[in-house]
C-alpha cells in the first residue's frame, strides 16, 4: 500500500517539476521569502506608537517625538477609540497634573515598559543630549509587519498546496486516467493519500523555508509544523473537490482562490479589529491558525496554547471534512 501511495506521489512530483504552472507554485515560498526580506527592512516600525491629546502639552509631545512615533487626537474619546484598535498604540493621558498610561491589553510588555520609562525620563527632565546612556533598542528586533507577512504567507502557502493538488486532479480528469487507476488493486484511500502528499510536503517545506529565510528560524519548529499541518487540511480538501468538479485548471484555480478571502479576513481581524468583533471570526479556521502562528512567531506561545489553537483548526476542518469527503469519494467513481 505504501509503495502505491509513494508511486502516485512520485508521478505527481515528476509532472509538477516539468510543468510551468506547478513549478511556479513550487517556487512561490522562496519568492515570497525573498520579497519579504527585501521589503520589510525599509519599514521603520521598531518604535512604540504613542497617542496624545492635541494641544494639551506640546512640550511633552515634542520630547516624545525624539523616541517614539506620535499621534495626536482631539479629545479623550477619539484617543480612546484609537487605543482600542488592535494594533499596538499606547495612550498618554493627563489626569490631575499627572500622566497615566492607557492600554488596550494586547500591547507587548516591552512597549508598555518603554512608554513608562519615557514618561519617567520626561518627568525627571532628562534630555537626549544630557543623557549619558544611549537608548538603543527598546523596541522589538523584528518589525511586526514582517511577522504579519510571514504568518500570512505561511497560510497562503497552505492554500497553494490545495491548488497544486487540484492541478494534479484536473490532469487525471482531462486524461481520464482515474478509471484506469480504478482497475488496479489501488484503493481510493491510497489514491487520495498519494495525491495529497505533494500538497502536504509543499506546505510544510515551503512554510519552513519561508520561516527560515525570513529570519524566524529560532522559533519552535515543532509548533509551527503543527499549525501548518492542521491549516493545510482544509486547503487539501478544497483542492480535491475543485479538481474533481472542474474540467480545466484555470476554473479550478479560480475557485480555490476564494479561500484567500477567509484568510485575508482573518489577518485583518486579528490585526485591526477590536476585541469585541473577534468572535465573528471564530468560525474561520484561518483565524485560529493565524493566531496560533502569531504566538509561535512571537516565541510567546506555550505548547498548551498552540495545541488549543491547532485543536480548534482541526475541529473546524473536521466539520468541512464530513461535508466534503463523500463528494470526493463520489467524484472518484
Amino acid at each position, binding site marked *: 500500500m505504501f*509503495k*502505491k501511495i509513494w*508511486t502516485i506521489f512520485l*508521478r505527481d512530483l*515528476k*509532472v509538477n517539476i*516539468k*510543468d510551468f504552472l506547478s513549478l511556479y507554485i513550487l517556487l512561490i515560498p522562496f519568492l515570497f521569502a525573498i520579497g519579504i526580506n527585501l521589503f520589510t527592512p525599509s519599514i521603520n516600525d521598531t518604535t512604540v506608537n504613542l497617542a496624545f491629546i492635541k494641544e494639551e502639552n506640546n512640550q511633552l509631545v515634542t520630547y516624545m517625538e525624539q523616541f517614539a512615533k506620535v499621534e495626536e487626537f482631539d479629545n479623550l474619546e477619539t484617543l480612546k477609540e484609537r487605543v482600542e484598535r488592535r494594533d499596538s498604540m499606547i495612550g498618554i493621558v493627563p489626569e490631575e497634573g499627572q500622566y497615566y498610561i492607557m492600554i488596550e491589553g494586547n500591547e507587548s510588555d516591552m512597549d508598555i515598559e518603554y512608554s513608562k520609562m519615557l514618561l519617567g525620563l520626561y518627568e525627571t527632565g532628562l534630555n537626549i543630549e544630557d543623557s549619558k546612556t544611549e537608548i538603543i533598542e527598546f523596541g522589538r528586533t523584528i518589525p511586526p509587519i514582517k511577522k504579519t507577512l510571514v504568518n500570512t504567507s505561511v497560510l497562503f502557502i497552505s492554500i497553494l498546496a490545495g491548488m497544486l493538488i487540484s492541478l494534479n486532479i484536473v*490532469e487525471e480528469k*482531462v*486524461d*481520464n*486516467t482515474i*478509471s*484506469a*487507476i*480504478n*482497475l*488496479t*488493486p*489501488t*484503493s481510493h484511500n491510497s489514491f487520495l493519500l498519494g495525491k495529497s502528499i505533494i500538497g502536504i510536503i509543499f506546505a510544510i517545506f515551503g512554510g519552513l523555508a519561508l520561516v527560515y529565510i525570513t529570519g524566524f528560524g529560532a522559533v519552535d519548529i515543532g509548533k509551527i509544523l503543527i499549525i501548518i499541518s492542521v491549516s493545510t487540511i482544509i486547503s487539501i480538501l478544497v483542492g480535491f473537490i475543485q479538481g474533481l468538479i472542474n474540467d480545466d485548471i484555470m476554473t479550478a484555480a479560480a475557485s480555490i482562490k476564494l479561500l484567500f478571502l477567509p484568510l485575508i479576513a482573518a489577518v485583518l481581524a486579528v490585526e485591526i479589529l477590536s476585541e469585541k468583533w473577534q468572535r465573528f471570526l471564530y468560525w474561520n479556521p484561518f483565524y485560529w491558525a493565524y493566531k496560533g502562528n502569531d504566538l509561535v512567531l512571537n516565541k510567546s506561545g506555550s505548547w498548551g496554547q498552540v495545541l488549543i489553537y491547532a485543536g480548534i483548526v482541526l475541529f473546524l476542518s473536521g466539520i468541512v471534512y464530513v461535508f466534503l469527503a463523500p463528494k470526493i469519494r463520489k467524484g472518484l*467513481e
Partner: protein
Amino acid sequence: MIKVKNLYHSYKKDDIYQVKDVNFEVEEGEIFGFLGPSGAGKTTVQNILTGLLEIHKGQAEVAGYDMKNISKDMFNKIGMSFEQSNVYSKLTALENLKFYAKLFDVETRDPKDLLKLVGLEDKANMRAGEFSKGMKHRLTFVRSMINNPIMWFLDEPTTGLDPSIAADIKNIIREKNKQGVTIFLTSHNMFIADELCHRVAFIVDGEIKLIDSPRNLKLQYGDKMIEVDYIKDGENINDSFSTILNEDKKKLKEIIDNYEIQTMHSKEASLEEIFIKVTGRGLV
C-alpha cells in the same frame, strides 16, 4: 469465468434501463463477442463487469469474484483496454507503463516488451500527449495486459486503427487466448467478431437478442440470402434479401416484377447481415 444473471442498469437510477435483463455466461478460455450498434449498452455492461460502474440490479460474477462485493484482488487478475484511450499525456509512453505496473501486486510485464508488441518501441520516450490517436489507442491496449490478466476485457480494440495494426492486434488477441486467457470483446465491427470470437451475443437497446457461435449462425442463416443487382431509374442497385423473412420475400418479388435484373445469386450471409436480420437493426 463470467456469469451474468438478470442484470439491469439505469444511469439515472430510474425505471428507464440502459441495460435490461441481460443473462449470459462466458467459459474459461473463450473469446466472447459482445456485438451491437452504438448506444446498445456494450460499454455499460463491460463497465459493470470491471467494477467501474456499481451493480444496481441483478447478479454478476467475474473470475470467481462477486461484483456486488468486489475484492481489490480481482484487479490483479483482470485487464481492460478502454474504448477511449486514457493515458497520461504529460508522461512518456514508457513512463506511463512503468507507473501503471507499480500499482499491481502481481508480477508485471516488461514495459519495453509491451511497446515492441504494438510497434511503439521507437516512441518509448515520447510524451503520450504528442501521440496520434492510433498510437494512444495502442498504448492503452498494451497497458491492459501489463499484469498478465487471466480475464481480459477489450472495448473496441481495433476501431480506428489502420488495417496492418489492426491485424497485429488481432494476432495478439489470438495468441493470448491460446495461452488460456479468457476474452470479453466489445465491438460493432462484425468482421473482427467473426474472425476472433467463439461465441457472440447480439445486443440492441440494452437487451441481448441472441447468443451463438458465428458458425452456427451462418449454418442457420447461411445460403438463405439472395444478392441482386438490378437497374432502377437508370441506376445500378445492389441489395440482398433473406429468403425466409416475409417482408424480404415480398420486396424481392417486387423487384423481379418491376425492374431489370442484372445478376442474382444466393450467398452465405455475413455476420452483419445476420445481425440485421435477427435484430431488425443496422450496426451503426
